[in-house]
């Protein structure tokens, strides 16, 4: 078809994955951490789609997996945001570093 092969897309997804990881590890705002998670999940989705397209087009496993991941990501995000808002109510902060009463 074109020169664009599987590896190109995998490069994009892996890069996106680790961009997400980087964000998750460094951002202090919990909502931004959540956004990073979304990036991670999207990179996985991209993986599944790419594999489905290039390698295993005879079945639609990857595709369906992607759909379910999207659904779950929504649920997860919803619960996470609920928790963050609750936390914000009690801590008056959404800085993740402030939420460290529990330690050692």
């Amino acid at each position, binding site marked *: 078809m074109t020169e664009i092969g599987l590896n190109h897309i995998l490069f994009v997804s*892996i890069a996106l994955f680790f961009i997400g990881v980087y964000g998750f590890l460094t951002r202090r705002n919990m909502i931004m951490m959540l956004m990073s998670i979304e990036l991670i999940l999207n990179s996985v989705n991209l993986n599944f789609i790419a594999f489905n397209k290039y390698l295993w087009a005879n079945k639609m496993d990857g595709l369906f997996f992607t759909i379910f991941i999207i659904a779950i990501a929504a*649920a997860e995000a919803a619960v996470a*945001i609920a928790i963050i808002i609750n936390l914000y109510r009690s801590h*008056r902060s959404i800085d993740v570093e402030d939420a460290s009463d529990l330690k050692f």
Partner: protein
Amino acid sequence: MTAQDIIFYLLAAFTLVTGFLAVTTTRIFRSAIFLLFSLIGIAGIYFWLEYEFIAAVQIVVYVGGIVVLIIFSIFLTQEAGANLPDTTITKKITGGIAAACGFGFTLLQVLQHNFTGTTEPGIEPSVANIGNRMLGVNEFGYSLPFEVVSILLLAAMVGCIVIALKTPVQK
């Protein structure tokens, strides 16, 4: 290099750059917008890959749902979130190194791997095919996961309601 290639590269670059900006800008609202762009970029790649249904879902759920939810929550928590102190430099460096190492290592593994796909003819990812399978109970049917996800969503909703709804303080 064909036009398709160029489109892919553009899409990829767009996605990655906006993704990167999303996790690095200090302004949280901007960050959300960058995320939005990045997600749209991915949807673009799906289109490019001719998985239109997924692309549509991506836009509907992510762009229409999750990002809106996120922006909504940003508004809710704005007074605290607006002026967060910046991340310490050490944290950035360690995070960067960790991510970079992970990226390098993973990429190395992927590039070294010789992917061998099937030679069987592929299935058109059409809405009809997807729809049939999604609710099918026979082979290649996905009705069980569908049910599971629905319960999951139900549970998530219940959880969200209990947690997030501001309840009157009991006497």
